[in-house]
């Protein structure tokens, strides 16, 4: 319980200054730190061959984002498929099969970190340190860049949003607005914000016992000579820096298979607190960035208020279900959990890692109480409780546009947001985006459950359905955690998850940017007494209701067939709980 309060207090206390700093970084304000970072940035710009002063239209921004992803993706895919022939492979990891390499690459490129392989055995040190770690650092900053560009678009372009009264620079031929420079946004956020924070976290984690070494781990004889095991080998490695970025960047893919449940990856209650805090720190900081970045402080209140409300409800539900409800009396409570964390810390982590799109775990989600499982799946379906770095706010903007549209219709006025009309073109795109999720998540779940040869679930009954639903919800939400008993290292799972990962990332990031690009070009209607004020508690509740109703309408039947059914079966059977 005390950890819960500490995590939220620290996330808000540290997120506030970090968010304001982040706003300055993304606005490009001059700071004393320019003397350190300026020369590095200018050097990289020169190598990239770009002019940092030039902006981009939303189309230019989106294509730079896609092109950078394509180039990174191809190189990393090839790296995974040829790692056996490359240096830094002490454990002799073999080349990955094309489909597993494709899934792994897409999974890390989309900030998901769903793992259909087992870390130590199937990836070389080179793949881990170059491919995995590189993507874990850069993908959250790509998400951040896209959402900042989207905000600029919604406010009519970069200059307009900064409060400038000067005419917004336009590309005269097409009337497009400047949403920023993709390369500059990503590089500044990475160098000035993410890498220093990650280094700090890496050192803090190393102090608690997370390995940070390139040397091989020790092999020794167990103390008790009467056991069958003759020797134990402890795998070490440069674990601490990777764990730092996996926690901070809503990545989630760990060094060891069972992630932060492993004592080497999460040795003490303090490291657990630091890692839990890191899960929500940047997503919370981003809500505090919104106000100073857009010049509308009350917008932060709306975003933070809605997200915090959903977070408190979800956290309360998970804690109650796992640690305080009657099912917490089950003797199986500690299955998949670690002694040093206990039930409430495990439940706190499970809910926060799915409220954000982190996906790391410190207990095995497969063995959680069924209703805790339902909470985690619901979190991932909403995907904007805090959401991933950047993508969470992006998804929130989708809900914001929808809620503004509905409110406009209900009050009988032309729907608008920040003075710009929401019209048929934008709503069509919104509808497409909303429909993609059930189409992919429910569609693939139904197909996979109907084909037992492909399913690969390790538990019978309702929970077998939960395992499949969880996997696709996690893939589409770019979360990456799983009910890990699933036998998911097959071409069927790899390829279907690639589809879910792909749309869950690129459609969810680019469609709102597209909408913002359309909105940016519209004339601003003057504020009047009839203008919908979005920064009010009433509107916040409307927005949260839209989220709840959408999720329930789309996914309630699936949740009943999975975790809810399992819960009812367990509690009514009675005999199952000794």
């Amino acid at each position, binding site marked *: 319980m005390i950890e819960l309060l500490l995590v939220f207090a620290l996330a808000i206390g540290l997120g506030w200054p970090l968010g304001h700093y982040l706003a300055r970084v993304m606005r490009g304000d001059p700071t004393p730190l320019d003397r350190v970072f300026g020369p590095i940035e200018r050097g990289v710009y020169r190598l990239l061959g770009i002019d940092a002063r030039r902006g981009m239209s939303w189309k230019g921004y989106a294509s730079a984002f896609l092109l950078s992803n394509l180039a990174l993706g191809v190189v990393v895919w090839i790296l995974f498929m040829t790692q056996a022939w490359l240096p830094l492979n002490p454990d002799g990891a073999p080349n990955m099969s094309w489909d597993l390499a494709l899934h792994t690459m897409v999974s890390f490129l989309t900030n998901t970190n769903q793992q259909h392989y087992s870390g130590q055995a199937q990836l070389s040190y080179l793949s881990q340190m170059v491919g995995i770690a590189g993507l874990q650092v850069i993908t959250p900053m790509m998400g951040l860049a896209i959402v900042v560009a989207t905000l600029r678009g919604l406010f009519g372009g970069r200059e307009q949003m900064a409060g400038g009264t000067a005419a917004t*620079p336009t590309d005269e031929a097409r009337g*497009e607005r*400047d949403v920023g420079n993709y390369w500059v946004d990503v590089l500044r956020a990475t160098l000035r914000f993410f890498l220093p924070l990650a280094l700090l976290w890496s050192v803090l984690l190393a102090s608690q016992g997370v390995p940070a070494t390139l040397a091989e781990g020790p092999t020794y004889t167990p*103390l008790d000579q009467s056991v069958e095991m003759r020797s134990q080998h402890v795998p*070490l490695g440069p674990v601490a820096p990777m764990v730092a970025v996996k926690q901070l960047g809503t990545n989630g893919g760990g060094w060891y298979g069972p992630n932060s449940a492993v004592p080497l990856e999460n040795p003490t209650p303090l490291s657990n607190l630091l890692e839990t805090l890191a899960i929500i720190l940047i997503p919370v900081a981003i809500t505090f960035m919104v106000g100073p970045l857009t010049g509308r402080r009350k917008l932060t209140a709306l975003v933070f208020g809605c997200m915090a409300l959903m977070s408190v409800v979800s956290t309360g539900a998970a804690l109650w279900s796992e640690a305080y409800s009657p099912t917490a009396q089950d003797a199986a409570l500690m299955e998949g959990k670690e002694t040093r964390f206990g039930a409430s810390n495990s439940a706190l982590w499970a809910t926060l890692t799915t409220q954000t799109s982190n996906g790391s775990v410190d*207990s095995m989600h497969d063995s959680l109480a*069924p209703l805790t499982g339902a909470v985690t799946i619901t979190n991932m379906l909403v995907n904007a409780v805090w959401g991933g770095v950047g993508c969470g706010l992006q998804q929130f903007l989708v809900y914001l546009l929808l809620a503004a549209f509905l409110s406009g219709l209900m009050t009988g006025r032309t729907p608008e947001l920040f003075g710009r009309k929401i019209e048929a073109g934008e709503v069509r795109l919104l509808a497409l985006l909303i429909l993609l999720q059930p189409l992919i998540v429910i569609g693939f779940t139904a197909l996979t459950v109907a084909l037992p040869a492909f399913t690969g679930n390790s538990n019978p009954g309702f929970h077998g359905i939960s395992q499949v639903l969880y996997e696709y919800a996690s893939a589409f939400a770019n979360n990456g955690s799983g009910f890990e008993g699933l036998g998911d290292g097959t071409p069927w799972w790899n390829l279907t998850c690639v589809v879910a990962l792909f749309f869950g990332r690129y459609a969810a990031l680019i469609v709102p940017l597209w909408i913002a690009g359309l909105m940016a070009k519209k004339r601003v209607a003057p504020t009047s007494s009839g203008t919908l004020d979005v920064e009010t508690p009433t509107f916040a509740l409307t927005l949260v209701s839209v989220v709840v109703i959408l999720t329930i309408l789309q996914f309630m039947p699936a949740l009943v067939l999975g975790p809810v059914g399992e819960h009812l079966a367990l509690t009514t059977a009675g005999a199952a709980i000794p």
Partner: protein
Amino acid sequence: MDTSQLAFDDRPSLRAALVFTVFVLLGCGLLYELAGTALGRVLFPHQAQGTLIERDGRVVGSTLVAQPFADARYFQPRPSAAGYDPMAVAGSNQARSNPALRQSMAERRSIVAQREGLPESAVPGDLLTASGSGIDPDLSPAAAAVQVARVAKARGMSVDAVQALLRANTTPPQFGLLGEPRVNVLELNLALDAAATRPE
């Protein structure tokens, strides 16, 4: 310079994408990893190398890795779904509704009850369940307490002496606040061995 004077830079640049890829893989990946590793090793050399325990200059284990124990003279750790192999760390991933989980719990219950001379209902939950990692090095104080009598008998020590060692090796919540109280099984067993060789 006034940015409005500059045209948009909308043409996709392959050069930028390729140089960016190199920056990500070598800068954000390799360089960052090396920097983080170096900092950890220099500032916290013991922790950075696996928190190893040495006796007479020989590595005998790590505080962060459970070892299997079978001898009656030793406290026994929680069940492991990974056979206590740190190279194969894993949980069971069995759901609470899974009959296989209920069956292995029932088997463990009768084994532990018989071994420690307890009624079956008194076996603590963490001795019935596999940990998340398969190498959980800790026991709850309750799960250690039920083993005291058996260990004392097998070693010919007094129950009080074993109890005292158990108390000395019980870690309270960190700073009195964080996490659960726990007993590191390997450290406790090493302390027992040390007490046995020390002249009274």
